[in-house]
């Protein structure tokens, strides 16, 4: 069988952050990211304060720093792009450790790095305190188009099924002496990908048939209604509200 009991990002626990309704957390993270992005890049201290805010949330959620930092690795491909900026952006040159780099490029890299890292950290924090299922409920509650929520929910349900199918196909290939070594084997891999696509497509048709057989007419019934009290909203709003204060200071100072 597939992965463990929950998805890899989630960290099981009971904390005030875990217990917040998913749509409050989603809204809070979204607003926080908006605030971070609209902060002037020159206010470097503000980004430090944002990081401190996130660290405080992590502490309340009892998510260890190591757990968070490991999951920040997703960001690496974007960081690589940011690191190029000081060398390719034209403008006034300065020298760092004997290497000549452009000043606007440095600012640009800092801007991307700081804002992306904070955004990813906030999202990782959300994912590690909210079950995937709850994230979907939250999105539904926040009135994301139902079709998108349905697609996401089917992705979660059938991800493992399709991965399993892919694994079985790979075993079948290797059992017949196939080894993917170079370009010449790509044709076989492409054919396998095509077969996997068709199998998934046909499964989609069968699933739809099963849904229609049980009365589906285009809308998913809302079985679990996510609800939040005023206190819970206020609690969730603490993060973006404090961040907004920092942001405003950043613009005025």
């Amino acid at each position, binding site marked *: 069988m597939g992965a463990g009991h929950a998805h890899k990002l989630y960290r099981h626990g009971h904390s005030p952050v875990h217990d917040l309704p998913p749509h409050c957390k989603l809204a809070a993270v979204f607003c926080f990211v908006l605030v971070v992005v609209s902060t002037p890049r020159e206010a470097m201290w503000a980004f430090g304060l944002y990081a401190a805010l996130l660290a405080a949330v992590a502490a309340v959620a009892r998510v260890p720093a190591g757990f968070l930092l490991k999951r920040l690795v997703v960001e690496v491909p974007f960081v690589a792009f940011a690191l190029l900026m000081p060398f390719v952006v034209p403008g006034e040159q300065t020298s760092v450790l004997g290497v000549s780099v452009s000043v606007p490029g440095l600012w640009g890299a800092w801007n991307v790095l700081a804002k992306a890292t904070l955004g990813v950290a906030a999202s990782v924090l959300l994912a590690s305190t909210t079950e995937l*299922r709850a994230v979907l409920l939250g999105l539904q509650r926040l009135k994301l188009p139902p079709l998108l929520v349905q697609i996401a929910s089917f992705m979660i349900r059938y991800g493992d099924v399709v991965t399993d199918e892919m694994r079985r196909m790979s075993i079948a290939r290797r059992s017949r002496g196939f080894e993917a070594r170079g370009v010449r084997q790509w044709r076989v891999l492409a054919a396998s990908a095509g077969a996997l696509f068709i199998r998934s497509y046909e499964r989609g048709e069968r699933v739809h048939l099963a849904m229609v057989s049980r009365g589906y007419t285009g809308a998913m*019934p809302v*079985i679990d209604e996510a609800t939040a009290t005023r206190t819970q909203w206020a609690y969730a709003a603490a993060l973006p509200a404090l961040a907004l204060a920092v942001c405003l200071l950043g613009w005025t100072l």
Partner: protein
Amino acid sequence: MDPVTSSTESTEPFTDDAPSLEVSGLAYAYPDGHQALFGVNLTVCRGERVALLGPNGAGKTTLVLHLNGILDAGSGTVRVAGLPVAKRNLAEIRRRVGIVFQDPDDQLFMPTVREDVAFGPATAGLRGPELEERVLGALKQVGMEEYAARPPHHLSFGQRRRVAVATVLAMEPEILVLDEPSSNLDPASRRELADILRSLDVTVLMVTHDLPYALELCPRAVILSEGVIAADDRTQDLLCDEKLMRSHRLELPFGFDPRSVSIPSA
């Protein structure tokens, strides 16, 4: 019977004495011209368990898809507890006919077992404690109530098959239609499913190649061959008729003698 769909107005009166399923003169050709059914007649009375046997390509699946109106009859009629399968009745028909498909991964499409079992009744408008009760009741009938919060892909194949049965039981169907219920099950899961099916107080139509399973569960069997019902009799008599069996490409597993079996009582 209390229809879940009290909101949808079914124009036809619910007749209590009508047979669970009444198929008469059903013919169907696929859009590509291939004719699959040539006038099928079949009546299944309330509470009966009937096996639908037949070689591959006999039209079994095509027949099943007519029972809840996925396919539109070319000619002939299908009635479920007196209600004709027609566009205006589809919601009620799909509540009355519970189809359990062969691959439980197709049938279980919601993130958790509980939500999946709730899907049918919730689509029909049931909410709140009534819905909870219905879901728990259906899961209890198949012995899976402890797994309500689990995602379906974390269950064993046999457990998934049982949950798939629960998803249609939750709709309190008039007739349960099972497509190859014993396929891919190990002997223990097979027996557990048989015990469950025997304990249910519901009409069953079981499509299968598994002749011993048909004999074990269904007192009556029909053979669908080349688009018509070729035989309709006591299951044991059918399986013992070697000439009939051979002429419809039906074969008993090695060493199995239907004469020597004493059938467990219903």
